[in-house]
Structures are given as C-alpha cells and as structure tokens.
C-alpha cells in the first residue's frame, strides 16, 4: 500500500494533530483570553475527525505495513473517544474560569491525548500501540496536575506519572519478552507464532502485557492510582479520565487479546476473569465507605470496568460486542454523573465534593437530583434504565459459552455495588436538605445532562438495534 493511501487511513489523527498544532499557535500568540474560542475549535476538530471516519479511515483496512489498522472496531471506539473528549472540552472553561485558572492549553492537551488514543485503538503492532499509549499518557499526566497551584492536583499528577511509568515499564517488558520469543511485534505475526502453542516465555510476556494494560483501565489489582488521581484532578479532567481513556484502554486490550493472542484465549481468560471479579467486588466494597463523590465515582468506574471485562472473558465476537456496547453506555453514564458533580458548587461558586452536601437535593434542585438518580440506578444496572442492557449483554455472552457459574457469581457482585449507588439516591431523596448549591449557570451543561439522562433512561432501549449492529460489526473486525 502506497504511503498516500496509508496516510489517508490516518485522516482522523492527521486532522487532530495538525489542528492541535494550529490551535497551539493561536494560543501562544492570542493568550488565555481566547480559551473559549480554542475550545470550540477543538470541538470542531473532533467533529471533523469523527466525520472523516465515513471515508477510508473508517473501514479501509491496514496501512503502514500493518502498523496501523483502520477497521470498524477502531472506528467505533474512536467515535466514543471523540464524543467523550469533546464533552470534556466543552465543560472545562466554566470550571476553570471560576477558579481563575482558565488556560488555553487544556483543549490542546485533550486533542493530543485523543490523537494518542486514536493510535491505541488503531494499533496493529506492539510498537505503534506503545507510542499511542505514551502520547495519551503524557498528555494525561499534565492534565491531572493542570491546576498547578492546587496541592491535590499536583499530587495527583505526580502519583499518576510515577505509577503510569511503572505500568509502561511492565508493558514494555512484556512486549520485549513476546518479541524475543516470537520474533515480531506485529499482532498478526504474534498470532501466527502462538498458533503452534504457547511457550513459558510467551506466557510471561502475555501476563506482563495484560498487567500493563490493566493499569490503564484501572482493573484490580492495578487500580490503586484511580481514587487518588480522580479526587485530585480538576473535575473536567476527571470526567475525561473516567471516559475516553477507559474506552481506548479497553479497546486496545481487546484488540491485543483477540487479534494477537486469540489462540491463547484459555491462557489469558483466567487473568481477565480474576481481574473482572476482583474489580467488581473491590469496586463495590471499597466504595461503601467513601465520603467524597469523586472518589466514589472512581470506585464506580473500577466496578464498571470489571463488568465490561466479563465480555472479554467470553472471548467471542458476541462478548467483544457486548463490551463495546458496555463502554458506549458507560461513557454516557459517567459523563452524565460528572456533569452533575460539576453542578455541585457552594454559594461562593467553589466546587463541593462531599456526598453529604447532596442531602435533600431532590427538594432544592429536583431536576438535578432526578438526573443523578437516573445515572446512579443506571450504573447499578437496575432495569428499566439503560445501564441494565450492557450488563445483560456481557452476561449473555458468558452464558453462551457455558460459563454460567461465573455469570452467576459476577451478577451477584452487582448487588454489592448497588448498595452505594442507593446511598447517593438516599442522600438526595430521603435526607433533610443541606445548604443549597449555587444556581445553575450554564444552559449547555444542563442540556448535556438532559441528553445523557435521556440516553440512559428507558428511551435508550430504542437505540439497541443500532448499537447492537454497530458493536457487532466492530467486534467482527477482530475475528
């Protein structure tokens, strides 16, 4: 394939990286006063990148000798990533303006991170995977400590960086082991080599790679950074961390697991099953004692990643499609929850993060309380809310391959999680009102909350045929 044809496949990344550089120039010469304009520019770039997926970039096959794959799996993940990243950009200026730290670099860092995530989900080779992952991570480290005068934010950034570097090291070690034993870093080459059986060295490589990637999606036992980073990072950044990189990490993990190591499904299934069960249990139990809403949502994301992993544990196209559906619904629920958290501001306009401050919200701000209650019940997977549907699909995939005892245990752990989601609803609806929050000041945020609440409401079920077809087409691309 010619270089121009290959470049055409990377159209979304081209748009985002060239656009990011152009906006960086604007920011450098225009100053922070242009932040809002730059943010909208970034959103436009995300829209353009999303639209470019309609062309060869959406389903054009592999480019650069297999280093880069533009298939429908990558397209599905990229659309989710761009939506999540665009929302994270839109909600930021209001937040940073209130704390007087409105800076033009924020949308640009998100753009660069999205380029990295695009590379991650399109990677066809261990090295393009690693480059994409590092690009995403480096932007994320900076984003975590974006409010540099805030101690917690700086701490979050440092913690994220140190632990992230460790995980990258583990991942690289796994890649080098696999390269040493198979003689290639291409996914297709590794798959061919593993077909003849897996040696001990290759198994070690697989384990290390899974461990490194588990860090990125914050699956137990590599989840320790999540609550601290989520709590410390500015809320729009936390919303971003909880959504887009999770999709990218999960998609990457599935691509590596299925495309490169598909013949070793039985070997890595144990790892995935352990991580999934440990995540759902720990994500449920550890969240119970939390008093900070962002920490609680961090454990909630650990819990949900665990459920999404059950789909991968099935190792079938149905399972992968279920996990992709899970991530799509998860992004809507998570962004919605964080949008609600953004509305939690004291009378002085400063953010409030305690769960206790939500007391009696149903009487002071009924619409906000109803929206947050919808997100909580949906995250808990209670029908008729749409959060039930992806749980249904992942367990359906497990039952289909005969793993019904695992499905039974897995779904029973969802009851643990339900407890703390109920606690939030209880605080908002049953308790006496606490001091009211500052009035809502952004119609845009209200609109986004409404939109995501409608998506996870029972109306979301009408999206099932569309979502099912798209995720199935995406999953088929891997098999």
């Amino acid at each position, binding site marked *: 394939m010619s270089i121009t044809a290959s470049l055409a496949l990377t159209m979304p990344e081209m748009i985002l990286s060239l656009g990011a550089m152009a906006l960086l120039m604007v920011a450098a010469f225009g100053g922070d006063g242009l932040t809002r304009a730059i943010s909208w520019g970034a959103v436009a770039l995300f829209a353009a990148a999303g639209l470019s997926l309609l062309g060869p970039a959406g389903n054009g096959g592999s480019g650069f000798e297999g280093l880069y794959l533009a298939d429908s799996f990558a397209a599905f993940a990229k659309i989710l990533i761009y939506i999540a990243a665009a929302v994270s950009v839109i909600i930021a200026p209001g937040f940073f303006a209130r704390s007087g730290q409105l800076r033009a670099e924020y949308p640009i860092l998100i753009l660069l991170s999205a380029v990295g995530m695009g590379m991650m989900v399109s990677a066809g080779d261990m090295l393009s995977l690693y480059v994409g992952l590092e690009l995403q991570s480096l932007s994320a480290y900076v984003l975590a400590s974006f409010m540099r005068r805030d101690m917690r934010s700086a701490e979050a950034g440092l913690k994220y960086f140190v632990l992230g570097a460790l995980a990258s090291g583990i991942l690289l070690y796994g890649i080098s082991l696999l390269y040493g034993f198979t003689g290639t870093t291409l996914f297709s080459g590794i798959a061919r080599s593993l077909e003849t059986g897996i040696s001990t060295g290759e198994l070690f490589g697989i384990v290390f790679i899974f461990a490194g990637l588990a860090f990125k999606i914050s699956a137990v036992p590599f989840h320790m950074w999540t609550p601290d980073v989520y709590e410390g990072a500015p809320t729009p950044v936390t919303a971003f961390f909880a959504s887009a990189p999770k999709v990218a990490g999960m998609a990457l993990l599935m691509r590596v697991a299925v495309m490169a190591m598909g013949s070793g499904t039985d070997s890595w299934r144990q790892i995935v099953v352990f991580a999934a069960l440990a995540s759902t249990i720990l994500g449920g139990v550890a969240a119970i004692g939390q008093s900070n809403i962002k920490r609680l949502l961090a454990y909630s994301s650990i819990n949900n990643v665990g459920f999404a992993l059950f789909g991968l544990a099935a190792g079938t196209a149905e399972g992968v499609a279920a996990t992709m559906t899970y991530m799509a619904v998860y992004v809507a629920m998570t962004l919605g929850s964080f949008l609600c958290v953004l509305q939690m501001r004291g009378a002085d306009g400063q953010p409030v993060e305690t769960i206790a401050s939500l007391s009696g919200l*149903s*009487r002071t701000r009924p619409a906000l309380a109803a929206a947050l209650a919808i997100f909580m*019940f949906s995250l808990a997977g*209670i*029908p*008729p809310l749409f959060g*039930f549907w992806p749980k*249904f699909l992942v*367990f*359906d995939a497990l*039952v*289909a391959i005969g793993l*019904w005892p695992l*499905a*039974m245990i897995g*779904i*029973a752990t*969802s*009851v643990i999680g*339900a*407890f703390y989601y*109920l606690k939030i*609803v*209880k605080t908002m*609806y*049953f308790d006496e009102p606490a001091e009211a929050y500052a009035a809502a000041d952004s119609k845009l945020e209200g609109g986004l909350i409404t939109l995501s609440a409608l998506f996870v409401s029972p109306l979301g*079920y*009408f999206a*099932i*045929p569309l979502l*099912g077809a798209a995720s199935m087409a995406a999953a088929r691309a891997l098999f």
Partner: protein
Amino acid sequence: MSFPILSLMVAIPTIAAAVCLFSGAQAARVIALAATLINLVLGIMLWTHYEIGGPQWQFTEHLDLFGRFAWALGIDGIALLLIVLSVFLMPICIGASWVALEKRVPEYMAAFLLMETLMIGVFSAQDLFLFYIFFEAGLIPMYLIIGIWGGAERIYASYKFFLYTLLGSVVMLIAMLWMAQAAGSTDIPTLMAYDFPVKAQTWLFLAFFASFAVKMPMWPVHTWLPDAHVQAPTAGSVILAGVLLKMGGYGFIRFSLPMFPEASAQLMWLVMGLSMIAVVVTSLIALVQNDMKKLIAYSSVAHMAFVTIGLFAFNRQGIEGALMVMLSHGLVSGALFLCVGVIYDRLHTREIARYGGLATNMPYYALFFLLFTMGSVGLPGTSGFVGEFLSLVGAYHASSWVAFVATTGIILGAAYMLYLYRRVAYGPLTKEDVAAMPDLSLREWALLAPIAAAVLWMGVYPESFLAPMRGDVGALMARLAHAAPAGDAHVTIDRAAPPTAHASGEAH
C-alpha cells in the same frame, strides 16, 4: 392486531406520572385519580371483552422494537384477574393518600402511577426479558415510596427491601439468559411448552425460586416484608400486599411450574416444607405482635404459604385455590391495611394497646373491620374461605400431612385476627383520645365499600373469578400431568366421578 388496549393501559399511568412531576399538589392528586380511574374502566373492559374458553392468549400485541427482545404483550385468564385486581386497588390507594399525605405530593403520585405501569407490565408481558425489566423496575419506585414517605425506620427498610429482592432477581436473570439460548426464543408461551433437559431444570428452578421466594415472600426470606410494610405509607402497604406479593405467585404459575415440571415435582418437598413452617411459625409470630401493621404483614406471609401449598399440590383444586387465595388476599389484606390507615390517621399510632372499644364510637368502621377480619380468617361467605378451602383440598390430595399442618394455620389465623379485633374494637372505651375519634368519613366509605363488595362477591359467587382461569389451569394441569407426584390420599370419589371441566366448580 386489534386495538392495543394493554399498551394503552401501560402508557396512561406512565404519561400521567410524567405530567404529575410538573404539576402542583392538588393537580397531581386529580391527575393520578383520573388516570387510575381510566385504567380501571379499561380493566373492566378487558374483563368483559375477555372471551372465556377462547384462545389461551388474548389481546396479544407483538412489536419487534429492541432487536434482542420484543414488545410483546398478551394475557390469559390468570393475568387478566391479577391486572383487574391491580387497577381496582390503584384508585383506592390514591384515595387513601388524598389527605393523609402532604409531603411532596407530585412525586408520590408519580411513583404510584409508575408502580401501576410496572404491575400491568409484569402481568401482561409475553417476552421473557420484557417481563424481567418490568419485574425489576418496580424496585425503584417502591424504594422511593418507602424511603421518602415511610415511618421512623424507613431507610433501613428501604435498603433491605431493595437489596433483598435484587439479589434474588439477578440470579433469575442468568437462568433466563440460559433458557433463551437453549430454547432459541424469548417468547413466554413458546418457553412454557419447551421441554428443558431434566438435569438443567433443577438449576433453573432454583434460580427462579431464589427470586420468587423472596418476592412471595416465603419463610425464611420473608424478613424484608414486615419492615417494609411497617415503614411504608398506608397506600404503599396496600400495593405491596395487594399486588406486589402476587408477583411471586404469578411467577410460580407462569414460569416455574409449566417450564420446569419435572424439577417442580422433585423439589415439591422443599416448597411444601418451607410453606408448612411458614404457616405455623409466622402465625405464631403474628400472635405476639404489638404493632397492627406488623401483625397483618406476618399474616400475609402465612397466607402466601397457602398459595405455595396449593400450587405445589399438582392438582386442579390446589392450583385454583392458590389463585383464589392470591386474589382474596389482595383484597382482604389491602383492606386491612386501609383499616389500620383509617385509625392511624386519627391517632398516629399503630400500637394495638392504644386502641380499644372502637365498636362503640366508630360502629361503621368496626363493621368493615370485622368483615375484613372474617375474610382473613376464611369465614364461609367471604373470599378467604373459597381459596383456603380449595388449596387445602388440593393439599390433602397431595399429602395429608401437609394438609394437617396447614390446617393448624387456619386455627392460628383465626386466633391472631380475632385477638387483634377484640383488642381494637371491643372492650371498654376508656381512652379519651380514642373516644374522640369520629367514624368513617365519606371518603373512607368510598375506599372500603367497593372492597367489601368484592370480598362478599368472591365469597358468595366465586364462579365469576374461577371461570376465566379454568382453561388456563387446565392447560397447566396438562403440562404437569406427566410429572405430577402421586398423592398419599386415595380419594375414592375421584374414581367414581373423574374430574371434568365442572368438577371444581361444583366443589364449593
């Protein structure tokens, strides 16, 4: 497809609930009452248009909306009567909260209307997963009803209710996923005729049992019920006892028995054993209660045990009796909770010892209370007698020991109910605040009189209720015939006159 009346009945309360949220207190009351009355009219139309002896599934609708499962509705005679019971009790619930409830009225009415939507949905769903969604979704409004408008211990009770029932149901979901894959269909009528492997049936039965036993509730997983009842507002208790508890029994009839007949027969003694314990133990517990609502809640557990005993007797009398107990208990226990609500609104206590001598200053109240007490005891002429008698006859055919133990429940039931009535209504009227209580208001008359009429109707002429269900019970019997265990009672009258379609009609 004919006129989608079931979809309409599901849609009306949903829309009304949404409108309620955006209106004032008085407007919400009126909207809720209007919506439930419209549904009552539709329910009556459903009953009058239901063709007895016609096709098993009537008013069917099928719309492939969701890809993996369908919007499929339809009812048989059993579902018909349970829907009629639901829509009959709903306006009464709204009326019961008309003045007693002042806090957050629009949300309250919306929660109740949503409950109505979900109850109709549960009884009319023809698709396995549609059923599950309706079945589970009821947790959310009920959680809010108990938690927001409940009594002192409301938060503990609401958590207990939610988590208990959720744990039971998620296990059932996995079984449903397995069934849908094994049978290749999510259509409930298809699954009812599908023969699952006998070995798998046991597991499936247990998974469904986990859910239905909690909803029912059966001993020993009944402990959420007294807490939820005591803390729920009056109307919440009526709906909980009147309709929500029927979901468990309905589940046994719709799923466990026809889909897993062999497993049902094998595990008959599990169900019978638990039911026998429940009848005796919870009746004894009811005997020592000081709180009126708690007493009635425990009596509900005992009555529900008659349902399971009847169902797992594997004969026509038993199953029809179980269905009659369900309907009768829906009316009688709902009415008893209303009676408690009437005096609770006046004195704001449910403690039995605070009352006494009400027959003197509240004669009409005492009359209604007596009627419903008798209905609960199972006096001939009231609805309670028909169901309990039939299910005991059925149980006697299956096992005389079960019948023996269950019959003690009747005696104990009479004991705790009459004891309750004596302490509340009879004796000297010594307490001043009790003596100052006025008799029933016009509104309370309007709430209690229709239920009283229904209780007497069901007691005097049960055929109106048995007729629509007869064909469906027959279909269930045919499905169970090859698995039914032989009973220990060799009743010769059966041999002399083999049961015909009319046998049970003449039995009473």
